[in-house]
């Protein structure tokens, strides 16, 4: 038999106890006693979490307004109704379930309880701690808008609406997390969106059964149905302009309270190597940089492995002059190419990770100093050959050309798998591993859409993949030539 949901008691004392009990003796829970109505009036209480509510709004629009109101001889239940009409707030809802009232208090609402009412008024005066809209740090561009999302969902929605002020832009709210009750929103552009993708996203969000939803990563993992996915099949961005572009391309965007990132689904490999900046620069240069990024992604995956295969198995493929100088440079290095490459790559990853974790000025210093000094010392100690340092550095630089950080991380991880095969089987292993990666990527799907689309499977109607063509003014009106099928 289902458990009956507890309702708010009629007695004010009991009601206050019922609402406050789940919080225990937390210091930030405030209870303010009031008296509503004529003469001594009806005893009432305002319960809220200090720090989550907008104090000036609470004082001015709730407490002062309630005290100014002329209630007349009314019952306690009527009092709440009158109060909800008289308050100048965004939202004032009546609720009777204790659980809902408790959640509202935890979410930053103020709750008005009246003696004898058996219900509460949920007053939306929430104003949590938040930061102002700032410059995008993770996805900087040289040209184009610089603002980035913040942690507040409402602010993020407003930013999108401000850029894309079209009635076809839709937001659907949802709540996820059995403990955190994190609010979120699904955004899409009506008419452009692929309904099947939208249905899949809705279905995926309904299936989320997590205790606490603290970030977008959990949401992304929920959309991948908990499978091990080696490449990012969702895209995360902190740039509203990128989200708007995705919306206009018919993608679905998920925004979550507390996360300054939006999740874009579905994504393809080609989407991940595109940058918002491509549309703020001349098409030729954007095309060139896209090609550079594709080459960069191949280099990240293949360069160290190819080097290992050549220097450990297929010396005859090296040009003679290069082989001679590399042979001399390699003399005295005690490790085989595979160990050498693993050593340097792991050091590089450690330096990179340290650079991220440390404060910005220290991080830069660690990255530069670590890279220079460790590389130089490793060469002088004959731990690695200079050519290996060049290969590792070139791979690192290539990974930084990728605008999608998760893609770069995934490729860097996959690189070790290819290196292992090259180290044991030479070019044969290299080709085997690369083929395995290619097969995997070809079979990968992002919310039902092939990851390599529109090139595999080929869709000739989609032109904006590698070549950034000059945009036509009527692109959207015609239904969008970039719309996926």
């Amino acid at each position, binding site marked *: 038999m289902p458990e009956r949901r507890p309702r708010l008691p009629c007695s004010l004392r009991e009601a206050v106890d019922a609402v406050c009990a789940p919080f225990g003796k937390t210091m930030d829970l405030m209870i303010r006693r009031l008296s509503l109505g004529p003469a001594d009036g009806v005893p009432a209480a305002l319960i809220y979490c200090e720090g989550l509510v907008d104090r000036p709004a609470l004082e001015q629009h709730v407490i002062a307004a309630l005290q100014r109101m002329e209630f007349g001889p009314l019952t306690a239940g009527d009092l709440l109704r009158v109060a909800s009409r008289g308050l100048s707030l965004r939202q004032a809802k009546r609720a009777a379930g204790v659980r809902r009232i408790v959640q509202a208090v935890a979410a930053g609402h103020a709750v008005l309880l009246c003696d004898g009412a058996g219900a509460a008024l949920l007053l939306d005066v929430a104003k949590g701690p938040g930061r102002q809209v700032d410059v995008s740090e993770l996805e900087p561009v040289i040209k184009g808008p610089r603002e980035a999302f913040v942690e507040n969902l409402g602010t993020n929605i407003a930013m999108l609406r401000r850029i894309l002020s079209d009635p076809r832009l839709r937001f659907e709210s949802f709540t996820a997390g059995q403990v955190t009750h994190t609010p979120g929103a699904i955004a899409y552009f009506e008419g452009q969106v692929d309904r099947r993708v939208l249905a899949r996203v809705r279905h995926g969000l309904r299936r989320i059964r997590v205790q606490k939803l603290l970030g977008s990563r959990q949401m992304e993992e929920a959309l991948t149905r908990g499978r091990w996915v080696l490449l990012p099949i969702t895209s995360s961005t902190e740039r509203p302009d990128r989200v708007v572009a995705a919306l206009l391309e018919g993608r679905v965007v998920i925004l979550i309270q507390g996360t300054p990132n939006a999740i874009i689904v579905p994504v393809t490999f080609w989407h991940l190597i595109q940058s918002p900046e491509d549309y703020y620069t001349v098409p030729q240069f954007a095309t060139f940089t896209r090609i550079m990024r594709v080459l960069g992604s191949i280099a990240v995956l293949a360069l160290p492995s190819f080097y290992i295969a050549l*220097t*450990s198995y297929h010396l*005859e493929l090296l040009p003679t002059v290069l082989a001679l100088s590399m*042979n*001399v440079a*390699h*003399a005295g290095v005690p490790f*085989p*190419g595979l160990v050498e490459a693993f050593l340097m790559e792991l050091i590089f990853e450690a330096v990179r990770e340290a650079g991220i974790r440390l404060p910005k000025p220290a991080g830069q210093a660690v990255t530069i100093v670590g890279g220079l000094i460790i590389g130089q010392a490793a060469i002088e100690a004959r731990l690695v050959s200079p050519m290996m340092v060049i290969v590792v550095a070139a791979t690192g630089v290539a990974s930084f050309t990728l605008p999608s950080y998760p893609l770069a991380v995934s490729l860097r991880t996959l690189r070790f798998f290819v290196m292992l095969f090259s180290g044991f089987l*030479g070019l044969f292993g290299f080709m085997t591993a690369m083929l395995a990666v290619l097969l995997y990527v070809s079979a990968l799907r992002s919310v039902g859409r092939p990851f390599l689309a529109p090139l595999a499977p080929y869709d000739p109607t989609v032109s904006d993949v590698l070549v950034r063509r000059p945009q036509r003014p009527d692109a959207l009106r015609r239904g969008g030539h970039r719309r996926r099928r």
Partner: protein
Amino acid sequence: MSRRLGPLALLCLTLLLPLTGCWSRQELGQVDLALGLGIDRAPQGYRISAQVVIAPQASGGVSATGAGGGGGGGGITVTVAQTEANPSAALHDLRTQLPKRPVYSHVEVAVVGEALARQGLAPALDFVSRTVRVRDDAWLVVARGTAEQLLRARPPGNALSARGLRRTLEQAVAQSLAPRTGSVIQFVATLADVGVDPVLPIVRVGSAGQLEVEGLAVFRSDRLVGELGRDATYGYNYVRGNASTGVLAFGCTSQPGDAGSLLSVTRQRSRVRPVWGARTRLRISVQMHGILDDRSCLRPTTGIAQAPAQTLARAALRRRIQAALTTATRLRADIFGLAREIWRYRPALGRGLITPDRGYLARLPVEVVTAVTFDNSGELAEPIPGGAWP
């Protein structure tokens, strides 16, 4: 199923990795790269020599019989040699003289001694291409004297004689002194071809240690039977289409002491075709276009007109081709593939012609047709009065 099968497959694959492939591993730092390989006939069998670049950090303890030298990207170059009854055994024993295992995949020049070439190159070719497995584009040359002497030479400005030799050969090709088809694989292909005999450059060590291409060694089948002199070498290369970047020197007059003129060839076309008819013959036609480096022939006051100059150039071209033809006939080596050309059009007739002694060369009438066109002058301005060579 896939949840269990996937990790299992990955585990199997990972366990398989250490068991496969590693035995063919040759780490770059663990080997010495050989750049030149020499094969000589010795009284006890074969003498194999190799020019190897040794990384300096590991060069101690080299029991090389040759002098070391710098070069090779900072490495030390040594030439080691070993004599054994069997070339493979000699090659294997070379390893004992080197600190690390030599790798022959970067051999740029394979040199055979003159004596071995006279006996026949087939065993050496088999050894070079199948046992040593040198690169397909490695040059094959005949050494005046022994191959070992050539590899031990120290050309001025280049401690690596193998590299220096390759450079010398490339320059010789540019000067129409060596054929473009000088690699091991092309020599083998020519040997396998019907009705054509191969040639190889002959290289000698000069008095100052410099390497010089003397001419072309002419083979009948795989045996060295003689040489083409300088003029005949030019003639051979003109006919074989090897002169598109070469030169043609000719005299302006028939007077002794004539400084002559030089034509830098820009394009060239040559063909050997049978002409059927009452008097069946082979026609060698060579057309040459080029830039006249020096217009002294054409000076209004001292020189001659363009047409006579072209006639003189044509005659010089013809004379060299004739020299090559005469030498080839004397040596009874069909270096122009005359029999092959007949075989192409009349297979039965061609098959009948091709005999081991190449006796048909003396009987076949050959007609040489030449044409020379001066496309341009290499000079930027009019000649200075009195500036012509005396």
